[in-house]
């Protein structure tokens, strides 16, 4: 196992290596399996800069998410993209790192309104597969200087480089959270209600539906955040707008609303149950179509219906069942037998060629998480 303590050491280790690395931050959300020497970034820690008045934080990649949360919370700020905590779902322990969050572009319910991790990522420093140290972006919110490799690194799962430092935009924690709760809707009704809410002027920051809530019945949740009076006004206005969908309860208890959205964020309805778990991204109106094509199962819809967390029998090929629908599906949890469908969604031939080409540029020796995210660069091609 290698665990570099600074960026220069990380660069040296990669430059000198002939063997591949299996890279992880805290290992709490790693998908798929990779061969190679385990490389951990947990020794690259520390907040380099925190400027609350500019809504900016810069941290070393191995900094734990918990540490970052507490530093920001002390100034009433937070990471607005709500990175999920998948430890319970995946049966992992350890501490999630901010580098791991970025590498997975891990984004929660607020993605539908405020954006994903990639939308808040202002800059990165990383070491590529040749040991070259690269920076891109910076610490300011508006930056179009050169190509945006920041977005490329977000969600690249360590296949293009090992992140050493990330710079993020943060946002103030709102004064009040209000959640509209509607019980008993079918998925198609729920998506209609959520579309109506998201298409309103009321700045909805979360819209989710589950076929089986904590008390066993379907429940639809629509979240509003902001100043207390404003949340009250918008919640009432939205309740009037959605009156056709039945009785609507408005929940403003801080503990209950936080727990409810953490439950959605972490796909907690599937924790500890048998079967494979898939994360499916489609157009919101296709959400109910997806649900109807899958085996009789319990499903959570987030992002207004566009993100589905589905639990299906072991080895079931969700992609095959959804052929013809636009979107993508990732197998988040599975038994891991060789005949299982791939973890990551395959790409069209020309896009796969671009991906392979970029990977070969950044990692010509095939050292970084080979086998992850489709094919690793073939040694023959060099």
């Amino acid at each position, binding site marked *: 196992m290698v665990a570099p303590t600074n960026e220069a050491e990380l660069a040296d280790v990669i430059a000198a290596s002939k063997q591949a690395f299996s890279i992880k931050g805290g290992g709490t959300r790693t998908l798929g399996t990779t061969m190679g020497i385990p490389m951990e970034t947990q020794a690259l820690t520390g907040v380099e800069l925190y*400027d609350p*008045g*500019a*809504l900016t934080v810069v941290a070393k990649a191995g900094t734990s998410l918990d540490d970052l949360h507490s530093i920001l919370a002390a*100034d009433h700020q937070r990471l607005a993209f709500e990175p999920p905590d998948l430890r319970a779902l995946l049966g992992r322990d350890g501490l999630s790192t901010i580098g791991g969050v970025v590498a997975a*572009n891990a*984004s929660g319910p607020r993605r539908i309104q405020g*954006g994903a991790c*990639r939308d808040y990522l202002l800059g990165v420093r990383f070491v590529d597969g040749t040991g*070259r140290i*690269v*920076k*891109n972006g*910076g610490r*300011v*919110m*508006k*930056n*179009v*200087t*050169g*190509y*945006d*490799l920041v*977005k*490329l690194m977000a*969600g*690249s799962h360590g*296949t293009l480089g090992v992140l050493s430092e990330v710079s993020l935009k943060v946002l*103030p924690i709102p*004064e009040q959270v209000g959640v509209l709760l509607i019980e008993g809707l079918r998925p198609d009704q729920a998506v209609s209600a959520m*579309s109506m809410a*998201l*298409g*309103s*002027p009321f700045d909805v920051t979360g819209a989710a539906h589950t076929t089986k809530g904590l008390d066993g019945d379907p429940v639809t949740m629509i979240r509003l955040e902001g*100043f207390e*009076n*404003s949340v009250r006004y918008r919640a009432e*206005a939205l309740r009037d707008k959605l009156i056709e969908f039945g009785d609507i309860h408005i929940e403003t208890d801080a503990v209950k609303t936080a727990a409810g959205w953490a439950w959605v964020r972490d796909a907690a309805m599937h924790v500890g149950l048998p079967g494979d778990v898939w994360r499916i*991204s489609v*157009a*919101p*109106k*296709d959400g109910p179509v997806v649900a109807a094509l899958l085996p009789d199962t319990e499903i959570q819809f987030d992002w207004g219906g566009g*993100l589905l967390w589905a639990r299906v029998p072991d080895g079931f090929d969700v992609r095959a069942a959804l052929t013809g629908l*636009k*979107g993508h599906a*990732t197998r988040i949890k599975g038994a891991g037998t060789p005949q299982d469908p791939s973890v990551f*969604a395959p*790409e*069209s031939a*020309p896009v796969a060629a*671009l991906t392979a*080409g*970029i990977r070969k*540029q*950044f990692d010509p020796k095939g050292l970084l998480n080979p086998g992850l*995210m*489709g094919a690793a660069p073939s040694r023959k091609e060099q």
Partner: protein
Amino acid sequence: MEMPHPNKEVLENKARIVRRLQSVLSDGAVISDAVETRAYECDALTAYKCPPMAAVLPTSTQEVADVLRICHEENVPVVPRGSGTSLAGGALPTEDCVILGVARMNAVLDTDYENRTITVQSGRTNLSVTGAVEEDGFFYAPDPSSQLACAIAGNVAMNSGGAHCLKYGVTTNNLMGVVMVQMDGTVIELGGEYLDAPGLDLLGVICGSEGQLGVVTEATLRILHKPEGARPVLIGYDSNEVAGACVSDIIRAGVLPVAIEFMDRPCIRACEAFAGAGYPDCEALLIVEVEGSDAEIDAQLALIIEIARKHNPIEVREARDADEAGRIWLGRKSAFGAMGQINDYMCLDGTIPVSSLPYVLRRIEELSADYGLAVANVFHAGDGNMHPLILFDANKPGGLELCEALGADILKLCVEVGGCLTGEHGVGVEKRDLMLVQYTADDLEAQMSIKDVFDSKWLMNPAKVFPLSETEARRTGATLGH
């Protein structure tokens, strides 16, 4: 402005190349006459001009693919063009290039309120995207000042911003999918009405790649419901420092204004003389706009004013209705026109951390004195995106060069304090040679290696973004073995 020498072979083959292009496009879609091509000799960076060898105006993705395949085979550089409003020379031609204009591709292909997306052909103008959905209460958020004219293709290429991106983000945050044609004619589709890429975020790389990776022919964009209302407050201060501190305090207080605009004294005076908006004569002026219902706006403005008063403003003027709001915005919106009235000017676009604002403004003042050129500052303070306007005399020998030298020094200052060369206009040819101020050779190599993958012959908009010395081997085919 140094540009690469034209490829002689291409110029010699002009007749054949034009014939081949004509064979795949409809009548009148290929412009090769020396008089007519002059319409494409520059974009909004008018200091630099060069008529292209030809210009083509395709009407479909297939036609774009045919054009690019031919140019790829003939080794013709291609410069994609939206509406030609780039302030950075992004659409500046070379003598041997074909300008590929998307202006004839402006249809709305799909409007989907349930999914809150619109899919358009990329030649559609920014404002007419909103125009297609505003009757139903929706809008497309990124709003560059050229929005009446600029095309979505150019917005995607430059990752355009606007005054309201403090709340709504820039193009890349509102772009969900594209159909794009690569230089060799390959058509790819990325993203769509669903969120986030299945593999690498290639959509994120294409957005802001300044037309160097491919020609975007269709774009799927996020649309939002319009807010119930919006109103600004104007706050005047005696010093830039205090105005800067006020901006920070507003942001920290948890209010999320849609815009925080900042003007300094030279800019205030010019705008006042030009538009007579009734601005106070002070050192620094803030315009802060918030959105929501009437009551929500009142509450947010009250909080902002409470924060502003702690810094002893010399004036606070709250807009109580649309008319008063219009008057507050009048001066700001006429800033560029006001400057144009006084003199030739050059508009810079660096971004700085908001906390460095007072220091940067002081240094700009010193540099302005050193060069003997006046600088007026107007910018998006909430996100630190500055637009210093340097006034100069283009008719005076050496005037432009002196202005460019001051501009370069101001941009270096932006980088020095932790910011960047360009916040929303793009690098183009204008800031190409400053890239090594912000990035190391390795940083640029990583970016250029992306272009190697998308366009291995370096034919697409090849003389932009990177210093010519860094790209020469690639452009002339010395490194890639072709």
